[in-house]
């Protein structure tokens, strides 16, 4: 990958107790591109994703060695503030998880935590974020209604808006469409395509067609190792590694 990278790992290892879940993973994630991580269940793709904003810190008995850099800074350095890191590296989860509050409050929550108090400023951020997440037109008449009244697909886009509200550099998405129907999925996929103009997106998906559709780069993981990573077109047309070939043609997994 010759493009500028925003996140990179070097010899990243991670253990959950005795389980060696990530094994010497070295990956460079290009800026303003969509990178997909694919692989069979338990291969470590979500674990790797969660390393990028140190979500694994919240789990007991996790040991990490190796290096993860965001914008050339080691995210495990003592000076790194985890809250700032998670502002820069936002996350969207598999199941939409809006707060049991209004649509407005869901989006305004992050900026408030980070110190924005001005009402007009918050209004602007909320509208902009909802627009960026391609949900504004659907909710503008009812942004003070409960977020829980939205459909699954709308809730997921709201969660994306919530992530965008704190102006991250990178958005991590862990199976963002697996709980959605095909139409809601298509909306999220279109959104991902637009988001890469301003953000870097890393998406974990077990849906290979989705990885092929939305990503510029694809990494294939297997049993904790990054087997192959390259341009999506190359990975899906002629992968270099036999393991990748066998996985994407459905010969295992």
């Amino acid at each position, binding site marked *: 990958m010759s493009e500028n990278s925003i996140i990179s790992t070097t010899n990243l290892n991670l253990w959950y107790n005795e389980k060696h879940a990530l094994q010497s993973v070295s990956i460079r994630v290009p800026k303003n591109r969509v990178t997909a991580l694919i692989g069979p269940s338990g291969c470590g793709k979500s674990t790797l994703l969660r390393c990028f904003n140190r979500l694994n810190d919240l789990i007991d008995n996790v040991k990490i060695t190796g290096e993860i850099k965001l914008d050339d800074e080691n995210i495990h350095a003592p000076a790194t503030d985890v809250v700032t890191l998670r502002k820069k590296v936002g996350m969207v989860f598999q199941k939409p998880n809006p707060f049991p509050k209004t649509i407005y409050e869901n989006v305004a929550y992050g900026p408030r935590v980070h110190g924005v108090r001005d009402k007009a400023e918050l209004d602007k951020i909320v509208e902009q974020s909802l627009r960026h997440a391609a949900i504004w037109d659907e909710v503008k008449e009812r942004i003070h209604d409960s977020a829980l009244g939205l459909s699954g697909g709308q809730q997921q886009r709201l969660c994306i808006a919530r992530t965008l509200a704190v102006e991250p550099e990178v958005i991590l998405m862990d199976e963002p469409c697996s709980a959605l129907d095909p139409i809601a999925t298509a909306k999220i996929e279109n959104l991902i395509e637009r988001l890469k103009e301003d953000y870097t997106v890393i998406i974990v998906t077990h849906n*290979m067609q989705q990885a092929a559709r939305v990503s510029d780069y694809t990494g294939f993981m297997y049993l904790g190792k990054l087997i192959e990573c390259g341009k999506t077109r190359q990975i899906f047309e*002629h992968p270099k590694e036999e393991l990748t*070939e066998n996985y*994407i*043609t459905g*010969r295992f997994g």
Partner: protein
Amino acid sequence: MAEKFHTELKKLKADTLKMAQLGRFMLRTGVDALIRQDKELAASVDARKVEIHDMEVRIEEQCYQLVALNQPMAKDMRIIACTLKVITASLRIGRYGKSIANTVADLSTKPHIANLMSIPHMADLAIDMVDDAIAAYESDNLRLIEDLSSRDDTIDALRHSIFREGITYMMEDPKNISRCTHYIMVARYLERCADHACKIAENVQYMETGERVEIH
């Protein structure tokens, strides 16, 4: 799911192989009918044209269905892409066999001029190329098609030599013009068949390695 798809993919290859062999058979039989001036044999080639056409349509449909229902990737996708090219090339080869057979009516009243010149030899070489290209598709053995490019050069040289020789006989006696024109056309058909063998080989190479090469 994947297992069912791979079984269908195997069947697709088997069907394609049958069609390629029919194309090859029509070419071989067309040439044999010409050499022996056998009108009946020639008619038997013409009779297969509908069959090979139907096979092409059926296999093409199979390909589109497999793509629509399975969204194949990597080698699976490349097998289908290659198959679509192989059936087109095979149909053409079969049709050239038919075109050669159709010259037999005009060319069986008198003995052949100069024993058909180099046409029988050229036909053997072209059919060998077709055989190897088909065998490579079947067996994934790329060694069979390694030297196809230089074999194609020989075919081109033979076509040119038949053209020159044909002109000579035409100049010697205008009564030869009609027959020699047929011979020159036959040489052209054979050259095209060799080109189609190269096309098949290029696609087999892509199917196997994902790399695009030019063979001509």
